[in-house]
């Protein structure tokens, strides 16, 4: 269990220079969440185009894991259909839970795979999907 595996370059890159950070005008759905124990915060805003996530942005503050996860996951789902988005989220949850997962579907998100070995940090990595879950429920 080495730190370099947890804090991969790509994670630190997304933490220091997050993608899709900011707000959207007139989002179709928005949601936020926090981890009360550690204070990580994530808010997500989405715009849909029919069945497709046309745009997604997040704001938040917290540790490298929670913030890089938000950056990576927004990158992963932008332009995907809702169904594809749900598949990505499920594979990601499987990965964090230590179950089998499809690496091809996850792409760069697989960088967070070592988080599962740090039980105290799984919550940090899961916050974004929990927030995204809530936001997707607003899509009729």
């Amino acid at each position, binding site marked *: 269990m080495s730190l370099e595996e947890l804090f991969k370059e790509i994670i*630190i890159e997304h933490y220091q220079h997050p993608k899709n950070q900011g707000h959207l005008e007139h989002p179709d759905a928005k949601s936020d969440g926090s981890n009360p124990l550690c204070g990580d915060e994530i808010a997500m805003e989405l715009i849909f185009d029919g069945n497709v996530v046309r745009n997604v942005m997040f704001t938040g503050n917290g540790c*490298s894991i929670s913030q890089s996860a938000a950056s990576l996951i927004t990158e992963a789902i932008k332009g995907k259909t809702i169904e594809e988005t749900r598949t990505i989220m499920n594979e990601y949850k499987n990965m964090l839970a230590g179950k089998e997962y499809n690496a091809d579907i996850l792409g760069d998100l697989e960088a967070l795979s070592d988080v599962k070995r740090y039980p105290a940090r799984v919550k940090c990595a899961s916050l974004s999907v929990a927030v995204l879950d809530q936001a997707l429920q607003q899509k009729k």
Partner: protein
Amino acid sequence: MDIERIRKDFPVLSRMVRDKKLVYLDNAATTQKPSVVIDAVADLYKNYNANVHRGVYLLAEESTQAYEDSREAVRRFINANSTKEIVFTRNATEALNLIAYTWGEANIHAGDEIVVSIMEHHSNYVPWFRLAHRKGAVIKIVPSRMDGELDMDAFKSMLSDKTKLVGIVHMSNVFGTINPVKEITALAHKKGAAVVVDGAQSAPHMKIDVRDIDCDFFAVSGHKMLGPTGIGALYAKESYLESMEPFLSGGEMILKVTLDSVVYNELPWKFEAGTPNYEGAIGLKAAIGYLEKMGMDTIESYERELTAYALEKMKTVPGIFIYGPLRAEKKGGIIAFNIKGVHSHDIGTILDSEGIAIRAGHHCAQPLMIDCGVSAMARASFYFYNTKQEIDSLVAALKKSKEIFGHVA
């Protein structure tokens, strides 16, 4: 002080963590236990376990005696007048809630003012916040100064004839600041207000004299002073306890019950409903014995030296910001900090990989976090079994965490 010999008294300190020697620097959360405490608890169960204050047989006499001896140990440790003034609770939190639900419920009314500081742990804020809500009372918050000390001018200006209660943390669990509780008590008493001192962090690390402070209530947690978890104590002046209604009710807290009348037990048992945590109390007595043998003055001066050393060394970490007083004379062995570009959780994980245990998060003091403009801090907190070498390990690991996250501005 022979630290190496002292460390041998604490079995867990010789543990390896992730192939490294454990460096335990989360003593403000809870302290490790010496063998005498572990053995005292085991001895109860091996040799004389029986419910206290109930049996007429020898085992029950012995367990009751041990339980009440522990009360005497607590009395002596904080220099209370009488064991009638020592109520065992689960922890400091329960002690503070006991005050709010008994004395507070009867004595705080609409329009009354409760003064607490911005440094309070949630356990000395939320009970008063809720009480104020129930009663329509007003809470006033004493700010801290830029140097991490309490703003005494602001405190004085907040006191008025409406002030009914002052709640103050003796040693902040974030800043480490030692607040001038004796002066605060004298000022509050002039206005006729009762004073609650949260001693959860101070009692383990410095000599406490509740008669000298003259506070009306003082709360401690056993687990932060070498004792087992689940045992704490409330000190309250006898005159207060006499006038207060019981908190919880049931067995133990009564003298006589008929179907239409109840006579409460004498002090302090009136406030101890149900089978108490006598296991915890017996462990706490052993813990107090250990501390007294070392001497609180010795502990305080060694920890001050350690804190001064840590403050000096930690300053050399690039991008570090230390919260609270920067002079060891002003504080206990608690240092909260952040490092620019490295979130405190990440610091916590990186330190853990080196076997170093610290705390990251809001430290149950969210109003203080908000006041400092952050959502989380890292915190190293010491006890007398920590060493300068351990602080060197801490500082090296902090530098490493800065390296992992690159030298961002």
